[in-house]
């Protein structure tokens, strides 16, 4: 079908993904070696994107930092889907019962705690780290997926094809897996991409304020935090990590929009 709707986003995401994967086998420089003599180099032939205040190669740090960003956001989406989707299916299957009510009120409650507040509470008690960032963003994702799943399957439960399955004697679990899940997969993929991109942004924000991955693991957010005091001296330090975030998030959003247009059964049925 119309591949061009997915292509630009997919290319940007692939670029970032390739950089992250490449960094496992090769980076232009070691990210851990400090080279104080060459600190704050502007972009040039040796260091393509320059060096930071400790002489580390910016490009290498961006490549390794991509791993952190992607890993945190991906696992957080996994947590959100892994917990949220079954909860949403359950709530829809038991609609208007106390189970449904409990799940939905629980969702509302989690919505009262923005991801940053969860991260702050966790960090205040356990100290900062990438795992805590994952948990904080992951918890925040759960109600997003639970609501989406419940809303989408609730309307499916009244559809006649589900009634037909019930007449065939199939139970709620079997119907959820056989009939409902395949019909909301597209929705979940699209929302997954969106949450992925939000996760990248959230991870960057958390590590910017020091609640994310800790040194010496490079992360985009902390590179920006480090650049702040040197912003008049070396603006390129602030430029490149920011661009890396924008490219990744933009790519994911374009991919999500493209997938939506591509997979939307409403658009496809119009023939």
């Amino acid at each position: 079908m119309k591949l061009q709707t997915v292509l630009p986003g997919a290319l940007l995401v692939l670029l970032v993904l390739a950089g992250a994967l490449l960094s496992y086998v090769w980076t232009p420089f070691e990210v851990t070696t400090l080279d104080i003599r060459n600190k704050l180099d502007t972009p040039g032939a040796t260091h393509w994107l320059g060096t930071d205040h400790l002489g580390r190669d910016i490009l290498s740090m961006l490549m390794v930092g991509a791993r952190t960003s992607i890993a945190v956001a991906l696992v957080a989406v996994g947590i959100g889907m892994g917990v949220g989707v079954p909860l949403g299916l359950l709530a829809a299957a038991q609609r208007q019962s106390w189970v449904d009510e409990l799940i939905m009120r629980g969702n509302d409650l989690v919505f009262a705690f923005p991801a940053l507040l969860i991260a702050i509470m966790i960090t205040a008690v356990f100290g900062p780290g990438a795992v805590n960032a994952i948990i904080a963003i992951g918890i925040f994702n759960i109600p997003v997926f639970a609501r989406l799943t419940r809303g989408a399957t609730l309307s499916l439960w009244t559809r006649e094809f589900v009634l037909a399955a019930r007449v065939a004697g199939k139970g709620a679990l079997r119907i959820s897996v056989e009939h409902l899940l395949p019909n909301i997969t597209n929705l979940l993929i699209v929302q997954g991409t969106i949450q992925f991109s939000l996760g990248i942004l959230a991870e960057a924000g958390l590590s910017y304020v020091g609640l994310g991955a800790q040194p010496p693991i490079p992360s985009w957010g902390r590179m920006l935090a480090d650049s702040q005091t040197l912003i008049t001296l070396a603006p390129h330090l602030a430029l490149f990590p920011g661009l890396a975030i924008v490219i990744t998030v933009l790519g994911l959003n374009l991919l999500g929009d493209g997938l939506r247009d591509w997979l939307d059964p409403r658009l496809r049925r119009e023939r």
Partner: protein
Amino acid sequence: MSVDQFPSAESDHPGELSSVVSSNTGDAPAQCLLKLERVGLTIHGTPILNDIGFTLESGKTLGIIGESGSGKSMTALSIMQLLPRGSKLSGRIQFANQQLQQLPEQMLCDIRGGDIGMIFQEPMSALNPVKTIGDQVSESIQLHRQVSRYEAVTLTAKTLERVGLPNKAFPLSRYPHELSGGQRQRVVIAIAVACQPKLLIADEPTTALDVTTQAGILELLKSLQHDEDLALMLITHDLAVVSNMADDVVVMNQGSIVEQGDLGAVFHRPSHSYTRRLFDASVLTQLTRDTRAMRIDSSAKPLLQVEQLVCEYPIKRTSLLGPARSFRAVDDVSFDIYHGESVGLVGESGCGKSTLTRALLGLMKLHSGSILLNSESVSAKQEVSRAARRQMQVVFQDPYGSFNPRHKVGRLVSEPLFVLAQQPDASEARQRVHDALASVGMNSADTDKFIHEFSGGQRQRIAIARALITEPSLIILDEAVSALDVSVRAQVLRLLDTLANDKGLAYLFISHDLSVVQRVSDRVMVMRHGKIVERGQTQSVFTDPQHDYTQQLIAAAPQLKVQERN
């Protein structure tokens, strides 16, 4: 969609405009209000309308007949100049001696709602849910008349009275969600006629309504037209409605006019083969079933016995501490169905027939009473047994919604096999799917297709195949032909006849459509407010109804007035 899905008509000759308009005010010949000449329409290059031409005079009613996709609604939107994006209109549409395509958008706005009013099919969604009915009617008046706010309110109140919504019972401050479907349609009519238009276009105005409500709306349209010398353009798929309302008719098929003329002439001597087929199909659904009742052995045990069935829904408490209340949707219903018998259940929306279906299928808890299938209980509060489920299958109304769009036909048709105690192996299951599809006239090659590759009629055949696969004794047909066009409907009804004869099936045929029930059932039951108010042999109920409500229903149902053709 967007706002400019209704593009303003392109005015190719801006210089001529003033002359066109000014020279034609006042002295237009009254007999020809609307005239379409060689009108063609394409949307994004796809041809929709082809060489449409007809005229309509003041004080006359023109019926436009066609099945879905015939282009009848697009004809109406062409006259309103409210076509979707990407539309290209050709030919001439002349209204009160102005050529509509050449008018600038501002003048079209004055004509819409001022000189031409329009009514739509879906009264439930045709009104803005966040504005009062008074606001929505008076908006139309304030747009087209130079009146004060106060006068507009007075006129609004008068208009609502005129369409049968007395201000005492329906104050202007009501919101649409506080009204029933028929009442909302009256508000839509009020908006359309508030400024005394010359032409009223009604696009399937009663299709979404119950038969008794439909009769009221049609009566209203008739009286409005008579009192105000309106030209009425009535678009419908229902020949019976047209035969009761129209002076002239236009029959459309696939974007073209196949036949037009005086009502009597077209209805008595249809010249085009499509029109004849349409009539034959409509007449077919109005015939009575040939009495197979003879073959039914009522001394034997009944196949299905429903005894004193009561079903209730909980409704929201009105106060926090008040008692839990419930709504009795099925109230003390008892009936039997014998082997090979076809029983019709008629009722309007909200009468409890859907709840009854759900109860029979074991999809909801019974409050009290019992359901016995082959003398075995399927009811009470326990799970429906597998054996009972195998014996009783269902065909739903919506040919689009009753299949999972992600599964192939083979898997869809074989789904009921899940109820069998002994699951058939893959090859046997495939064989049974093929047999079932063959018995409804479908091909075994269809098993590997997805459901969206089939038309509405084919889907309903597949739904019947799905019901047949467990070799049931009873099939519940829940409005099973209501969503189909009349010609397709006739084919499906014929198929059901054949299957009943071949396999000795019993049917419970649930519908709001009297003519269809009359056509298919040996016995009929009439349901209202959760109770069965009348029952008997189909022939006697329809010719000699006893209960007031049955009499009302039969009187309200439009009959196709057609004599023997020579």
